[in-house]
């Protein structure tokens, strides 16, 4: 069974801090994603990666960056946290290499509060 693990369930950070959200998957998946979930807005894609060291912007990349140095790990970085980045952050992974319709497997989320 696929396991996607997010390192923190809850985080509280101050405005202006640099924040790292870590995600690890154990199924050798090619693709990894970062979404945020907000009430009334659903899940919105921030960044995704389809290979080590590769990254692509999603729909709302502003204020974020990512790092994928190893296949199993995908990090989301908030360069200078702001209150409008208070949200639930969800990491996901999926098979790649032609299996285009394989479902995403999500972690349990990190609820980030920026004060």
């Amino acid at each position, binding site marked *: 069974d696929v396991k996607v693990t997010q390192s923190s369930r809850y985080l509280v950070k101050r405005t202006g801090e640099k924040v790292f959200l870590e995600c690890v998957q154990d199924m050798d998946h090619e693709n990894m994603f970062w979404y945020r979930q907000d009430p009334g807005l*659903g*899940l*919105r*894609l921030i960044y995704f990666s*389809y290979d080590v060291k590769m990254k692509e912007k999603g729909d709302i990349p502003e204020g974020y960056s990512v790092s994928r140095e190893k296949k199993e790990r995908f990090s989301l970085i908030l360069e200078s946290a702001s209150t409008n980045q208070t949200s639930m952050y*969800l990491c*996901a992974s*999926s098979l790649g290499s032609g299996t285009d319709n394989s479902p*995403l497997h999500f972690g349990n*989320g990190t609820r980030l509060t920026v004060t």
Partner: protein
Amino acid sequence: DQQVKQNSPSLSVQEGRISILNCDYTNSMFDYFLWYKKYPAEGPTFLISISSIKDKNEDGRFTVFLNKSAKHLSLHIVPSQPGDSAVYFCAAPPGTGFQKLVFGTGTRLLVSP
């Protein structure tokens, strides 16, 4: 611009009855749709999918119907159970081949005993 829309933020049904969750989409190029279920404090989990070559896909108590001409899909749960209480998201890949998904805003289903 919301390409996948779930216009009902919430739905309440009684145990044993049918739950119908609706989803509309705007992009006629979408050719695959998925439903995810999300419990509080957990990540979304894949529930059921449908390809645009079909108009119906069934898996146990869950059936998804697709009406391409109306750009509408629905998820039917029969019979509904209290454990089905969750937020349901419909989603579609925009067709870039990397499985990134566009999600709707979700419908919170409450099934009461």
